[in-house]
């Protein structure tokens, strides 16, 4: 009975409405697709437009020099030999400050993450100092560490220290407890659990913290170099600004942008290499 019912409904439906159409597609979208060369294209078009604007007088050279002029300023800098000196001074400060800040940050972060007393004592302090813009402390650092390299390195060190501490201990908090329990259940010692389970599991958080602290370091580098530095990209940019030589200023800013891109690229490579196990 029910079978005939089913048959009759389908056949009557077939007679009443023989129109057939495919189910319309409603999914898709909202998912970024990798499109290559578009980003590069935007760059090229923008710079070409800028160059054209400058040459045709549409953009006043007083307001914004042509990219070619900025490039010429850069070549001048390279020919004079000052480029190496500026870069060397900046990179030295950046590397020393960043490496020391990150290393100390890792140690303190590990301490806070693994020891309840350290957490109770230091975590509030870190939270209190972290939001202070370290540029505001620069005058203080100059009094403490001198107008020379000391204050500049200290600024970068402080700037990269706090984000690393926070990234490290929140990374440790996020370690899968079942992995730690597994280690304990097999009788692994505390040091072995920290070294073989906790640290590798925290590495993703540490690396993404590093991304943040690296860009903070570059910002602080320039700020610190704007006070009492003879060489350094920041000093070069400041001097160019004071002399109203906008072509040099643009060249300096472009160098900073490239520096940032290189640092980002290096961290991405490190992530790819160290975190290939992530699914």
């Amino acid at each position, binding site marked *: 009975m029910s079978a005939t019912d089913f048959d009759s409904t389908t056949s009557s439906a077939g007679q009443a409405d023989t129109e057939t159409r495919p189910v319309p597609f409603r999914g898709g979208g909202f998912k970024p697709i990798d499109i290559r060369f578009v980003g590069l294209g935007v760059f090229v078009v923008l710079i070409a437009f800028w160059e054209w604007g400058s040459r045709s007088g549409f953009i006043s050279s007083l307001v914004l020099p042509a990219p070619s002029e900025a490039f010429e300023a850069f070549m001048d800098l390279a020919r004079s030999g000052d480029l190496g000196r500026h870069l060397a001074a900046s990179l030295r400060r950046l590397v020393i400050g960043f490496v020391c800040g990150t290393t100390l940050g890792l140690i303190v972060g590990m301490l806070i993450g693994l020891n309840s007393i350290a957490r109770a004592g230091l975590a509030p302090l870190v939270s209190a100092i972290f939001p202070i813009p370290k540029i505001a402390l620069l005058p203080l650092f100059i009094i403490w560490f001198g107008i020379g390299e000391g204050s500049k390195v200290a600024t970068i060190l402080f700037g990269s220290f706090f984000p690393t501490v926070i990234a490290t201990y929140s990374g440790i908090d996020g370690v899968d407890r*079942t*992995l730690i*329990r*597994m*280690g*304990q*259940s*097999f*009788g*692994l*010692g505390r040091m*072995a659990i920290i070294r*073989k*389970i906790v640290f*590798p599991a925290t590495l993703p958080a540490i690396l993404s913290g590093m991304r943040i602290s690296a860009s903070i370091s570059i910002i602080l580098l320039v700020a610190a170099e704007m006070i009492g530095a003879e060489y350094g990209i920041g000093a070069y940019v400041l001097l160019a600004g004071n002399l109203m030589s906008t072509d040099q200023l643009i060249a300096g800013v472009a160098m900073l942008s490239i520096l940032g891109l290189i640092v980002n690229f290096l961290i991405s490579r490190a992530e790819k290499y160290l975190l290939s*196990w*992530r*699914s």
Partner: protein
Amino acid sequence: MQLRVQSLSHYYGPLEILSDINFTIGEGEIVCVIGPSGCGKSTLLRMLGGLEQPTSGQILEVGRPPEGSLNPLTYVFQDFALLPWRTVHGNISLVLEGHGLDKADIDARIADVLERTRLSDFVNAIPKQLSGGMKQRVAIARALAVDPAVLLMDEPLSALDSQTRELLMADLIGLWTRERFAACYITHNLNEAVRLGHHVVVLSRRPGKIREIVQIDIPLEDRDMSDPKMAKLQQDLWNMMREEALDADRELTT
């Protein structure tokens, strides 16, 4: 070595979780513990291996663990607990390092245990490349590598789909008939309990009390679910648990 649970009770604050639990896991014997969710099964298992301390009562190791056992009480976890950054080889060597074994000895043990669990082809795979069933096989291999006296298995098949579960259950039965390991096997799946347990401990709902310990005399390798005796056993267990499970289901979590 036997493992004996003696008048064990446990509280979380004022809340009684487990009440007066007594049973023994004999040598070469699988004891399944079943009970509705929230009856304290997993807590009990954590106590058996010393990961948690009971409020009162004790857990006793009776007799010496086998010669060369690196970790007499060894867990197999529900969610495998493999380190995702280590290969299969690395995950097993993790639990062998720190026992003063030299590298050749460690490698030999790993090769042996992978042979026994038929995983030799996967030595260099990392967990994200493995299916759930394979991950649990690796976890079982890791547990066997330390020559345990008693395996403590916390719903080892619950995270797997039903086909994989069936395959792994057959593997476990095969492994047991070859190696005669002792185990405490926590599950909420009655079928697993009936097929793997020499004894089935039925816990009641909170506070977890032993309702009954059912002995199953049919040898593991001869258990066939088409046997009416097996079906009846499973039905009996279900009748025992039905009310409790119903109540547990309707309870608001606190």
